[in-house]
């Protein structure tokens, strides 16, 4: 039995008039450290729930350096006694861990196999089940393919990334990413899913016949002011914001609400110039063009391909 979810969710989103904290904007060079930072949580970012009342999981890094880093998972808008952590290695002892909630959140230790961790929190009421989920990435060589872990059923109603951005990558504005919506393992065709971002975007999407949702990540960073970062390196994010996908389903007298949240970055060409890039390539090509000309007054050298001397 399926029911239109949008009405309920619109009521949830309606009072979102509180000020949205602008995402911290930092400019860094090099490869996309922000991609890793996003998948690995945000360092010392304050907990903010103002932009949504949907259940979400926020990961936070603390600690002076890589070796002493502590990851804390903080449920927001959901009351859960523990956080379920699902490892990409379904065979080892860390395949499914229950992380007890402590003051400030649940501590997520790096499993031996590293790689992707699916984190879920569940709140059961008399006639409702709420689930929040997100993905955390521990950089690890030879980490197992997490696809099977993502597909393993963890709750009744699920939104599953297909795929989740891998290392050095992340959700970015103007990119299309796919998710699977399913209930008890069965794809939900024509299911309405709401997308909200901390930059203020709101939209209603619908899954296709296979239960697959294609999300065009909104480009809503335009008015965010940048802050340039000085020296030192702390893996802080560049420009980034939060997004959440949520859907609702009613079955057996219970209302199921599930939300998947992650972070996303600005458009790939943000603060870049394709025209200048092409111009410099052309400059290099022009610089090499004289090599294409024949040299004059050069005595031909004939290779003795018959090698009669040998």
């Amino acid at each position, binding site marked *: 039995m399926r029911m239109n979810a949008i009405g309920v969710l619109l009521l949830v989103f309606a009072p979102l008039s509180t000020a949205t904290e602008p995402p911290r904007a930092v400019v860094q060079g090099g490869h996309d450290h922000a991609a890793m930072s996003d998948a690995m949580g945000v360092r010392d970012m304050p907990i903010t729930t103002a932009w949504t009342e949907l259940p979400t999981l926020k990961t936070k890094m603390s600690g002076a350096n890589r070796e002493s880093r502590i990851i804390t998972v903080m449920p927001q808008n959901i009351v859960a006694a523990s956080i379920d952590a699902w490892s990409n290695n379904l065979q080892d002892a860390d395949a499914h861990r229950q992380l007890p909630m402590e003051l400030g959140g649940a501590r997520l230790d790096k499993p031996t196999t590293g790689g992707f961790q699916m984190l879920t929190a569940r709140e059961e009421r008399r006639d409702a089940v709420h689930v929040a989920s997100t993905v955390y990435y521990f950089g690890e060589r030879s*980490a197992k393919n997490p696809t099977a872990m993502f597909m393993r059923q963890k709750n009744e109603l699920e939104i599953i990334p297909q795929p989740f951005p891998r290392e050095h990558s992340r959700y970015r504005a103007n990119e299309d990413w796919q998710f699977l919506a399913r209930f008890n393992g069965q794809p939900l065709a024509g299911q309405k899913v709401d997308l909200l971002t901390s930059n203020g975007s709101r939209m209603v999407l619908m899954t296709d016949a296979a239960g697959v949702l294609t999300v065009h990540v909104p480009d809503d960073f335009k008015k965010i002011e940048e802050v340039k970062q000085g020296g030192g390196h702390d893996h802080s994010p560049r420009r980034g914001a939060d997004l959440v996908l949520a859907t609702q389903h009613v079955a057996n007298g219970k209302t199921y609400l599930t939300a998947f949240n992650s972070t996303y970055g600005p458009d790939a060409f943000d603060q870049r110039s394709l025209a200048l890039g092409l111009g410099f390539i052309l400059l290099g090509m022009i610089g090499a063009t004289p090599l294409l000309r024949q040299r004059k007054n050069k005595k031909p050298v004939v290779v*003795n391909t018959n090698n009669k001397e040998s």
Partner: protein
Amino acid sequence: MLKTIFPTLTRFRFAIQILMLFVTVYGGVLLGNYTVDRISQALPSLACAYDKSTGDHCILIVNQHQFHHRIGEALVKAQEVTYKILIPTMISVATFFAFFFFLNKAFCGWVCPMGTVQEIVYRIGRKLGRPLHRFDRGNVGRVRPVKWLLLLVLVLGLPLLAGLGTVSNELGDPFCQVCPSRLATTLLTADTEQIAVKTSSGIGFFLGALGNTLFGFVIIAALVARQPFCRICPLLSWNALFQRLSPMQLVKKQNDKCDKCSVCEKACPMDIHEIGREYGRKAFHEDCTLCGRCVEFCPDDDVIQIKFLGMPLFRSSREQYKYRVKLETPEGTSKKRVIPILPKPVSDNG
């Protein structure tokens, strides 16, 4: 059967290069999105982390990260360089060497996507009848130190200084920012993002401009010169550090005829003139990419060999030589007709 499909080592190598081009450029699509985490992340050939569908990462990005994030950060915080810092770096090197051990510098000549792209462009240049520019014995020595300089400055030095906080974080992976393979491989996936130069900072803009200009230069230069970027690639120097530690070796015997021949020198895409006049260890030069062309074009039996654990995998023979020169010159110009849209070159050595 195998000999019918691959009558020459060059054709066999080219097939491997194309296969590896797909793995290093499209491996994530062919083998699964998360393959990049699972093969080595320390490949002894260029495989770009900026390519969103690559199947693996090259050792150079890992080295830059480690010097930037681990060693540099640890030193600046006055911590001991403990096993927690050294071990990850050593694991990367060990992983790299586990691959390198078997193929040695063949990763450059057989696997590297940038090497393959340059070879394809060079073949186009031959078809178009363009001249060939080579480094002769007198001037090849001028370009050879550049690869060591790039290794020390761009792969090790600046990332370390960035980790120490001495220079900007934007210099945390400076080699990647100027590496033409980053542009070539991402373009092969129809991704134009890496072409776009950063405009948010002076350093980012400078590195992007330099990288794009170098890429443009290399693509045109590859029409008339063999492997122009390989000669200054820091991965060539990195691999050269380990080349004596692999059981895969290029071996050349002393032969009196070598003084009058020098066909192998002409066949060498890296202009290693030592292969013609030296023998023993000196013949396996630091610039060698184990492409095997010198073996193919050596007109005497068993003078040059590629050996693994002392066993010859491929050796020169007069029969092979005769077959090869029917197909193309040692410089790589096909004996078949060139496309007559441009004036005919004076000679291969133009």
